[in-house]
């Protein structure tokens, strides 16, 4: 079983990979948060693979180990290998870099990277979904305020106010929330 070390020293929740990797059958032997802890873990726990955020400041620490090639496993920069599979290039693009020991072939590394990739893609999707939800909430508030303006100024019922907004949006070819924003701005301008 490949022994994986996670470096968790940036804002990216790389530590959350632990569950996913363990679920996929890998042994996550440690999670470290700085260069000194990383050096200690590499020396004492001898990981086969180190997964690290591309933007981690600890990457240079692994570069040195790769060049020195003693004291511990010999991590190799996967990015270096021109024959690397697309999955690894994608991983680098997604912000993960893997340093692996010599004897770990790209074929064995690829599934780990895929797990990492999937985890980060899910992260991105969750963030997007959250952003969408927030946008919807903000839109709803705007529309409610605009309905209030119409009900107040024109004596419309709530249903009539909403119908008016919707009709205007269709006429303009814009979103109801945008029409609501215009209406509120106009109402503020005119008092």
């Amino acid at each position, binding site marked *: 079983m490949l022994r994986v070390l996670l470096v968790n020293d940036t804002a990216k929740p790389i530590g959350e990979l632990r569950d996913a990797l363990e679920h996929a059958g890998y042994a996550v032997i440690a999670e470290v948060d700085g*260069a*000194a802890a990383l050096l200690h873990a590499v020396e004492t726990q001898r990981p086969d693979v180190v997964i690290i955020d591309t933007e981690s400041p600890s990457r240079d*620490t692994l570069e*040195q180990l790769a060049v020195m090639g003693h004291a511990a496993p010999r991590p190799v920069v996967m*990015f*270096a290998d021109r024959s690397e599979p697309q999955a690894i290039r994608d991983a680098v693009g997604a912000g993960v870099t893997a340093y692996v020991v010599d004897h770990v072939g790209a074929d064995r590394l690829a599934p780990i990277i895929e797990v990492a990739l999937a985890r980060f893609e899910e992260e991105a999707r969750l963030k997007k979904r959250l952003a969408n939800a927030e946008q919807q909430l903000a839109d709803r508030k705007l529309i409610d305020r605009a309905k209030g303006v119409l009900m107040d100024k024109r004596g419309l019922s709530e249903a009539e106010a909403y119908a008016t907004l919707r009709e205007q949006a269709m006429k303009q070819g814009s979103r109801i929330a945008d029409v609501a924003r215009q209406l509120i701005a106009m109402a503020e301008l005119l008092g």
Partner: protein
Amino acid sequence: MSHLYESLPGYRITGSDAPEKTVLKLGFVPLSDCAPLVAAKVLDLGRAHGIEIELYRQPSWAAVRDKLISGELDAAHALYGLVYGVELGIGGPQADMAVLMTLNQNGQAITLSNRLADALQAGRGLRELLAAGTRRPVFAQTFPTGTHAMWLYYWLAAQGIHPLADVKPVVIPPPQMSDALASGVLDGYCAGEPWHAVAEAEGHGRTVIRSGEIWPDHPEKVLACRRDFVARHPNAARALTMTLLEACRWLDDLEHRREAAGWLSGPGYVGRASQLIMPRLLGDYGRLGDTAPLMRFFGGGSVNYPYLSDGLWFLSQYRRWGLLSQQVDMAAVVRAVNQTALYDEAASALGVLQPASPMRSSTLIDDRGWDGSDPQGYADGFEIRADAGVGGIGDGRR
């Protein structure tokens, strides 16, 4: 049709020296010597040369390297040795690289733990001190083929200490160095500023030597890019060189350096208090005095010329430390990397004087002379090398 010809590598039409690319993305690492890039940006020095500079702070030298190779960055503030490490594919990806100019000389240092600094100050030799320790001493630098690694190794070896055998050479990100000293896992380090001033201010270690004492006026950071960037954008590369040359000239004035220290302290750049950056940028090292060659950015252009002998020195040290085992034509490598012709054009256009020779002579801390004439012989002449001089101290503690 002229625009078609302009896009051909190396082709220039008289009267049309316009940069092929006008917005250039530059990487830098938060260090005091990224000042030329920051000055160029803040003063908008690129405008006169038809370019706009965008600066991107990088968390590691590995990130600088990867982004130069991927094209995410057009050029960067880089360790001299990083460029040659990538050119030769040492411990990482290979790419054909270019040094456009040297950005600074000197200004780096070595800090030791308080315990070692005290003993050294009391007159004891470092070799003896390290041999007396209970564990193998740990010394840090910043990148395996970088300048700090080479200054550290040279300095240790000059004292009879084998940097690869008698001590454990590791890399720790400079902002973590002070804490590593405090926790006792680290005995000393070589890095850029302000990370020595920070360790002193935090009381975790003391600066014992400045890099200008190891090699007076050594080359340090360079303006680096991929070689094909120069081939495809010769005008942009020249405009960028001129822009940074003007920034370096501007920084020669100490009043300007004071101003730059304020900019560097901003959160987007180094993000440390100006009082940690400014004194040493101005050459004030307190108790250490002003006896060492200090940070130089311009010196009438003598700093910036991409001397071939400087590149050859790094190759000689890679040989010495076993980082470069394959046979290479060292002179050919250096001529390909160091863009002396492009630099000549940029310097001439600004009226900046150029040296009479692409080689220069120096005497390093061990009294050995270096003039670039025989890099292999120079490398072989050291008693302490990767394959020799092992076992002086620390037997049985490896």
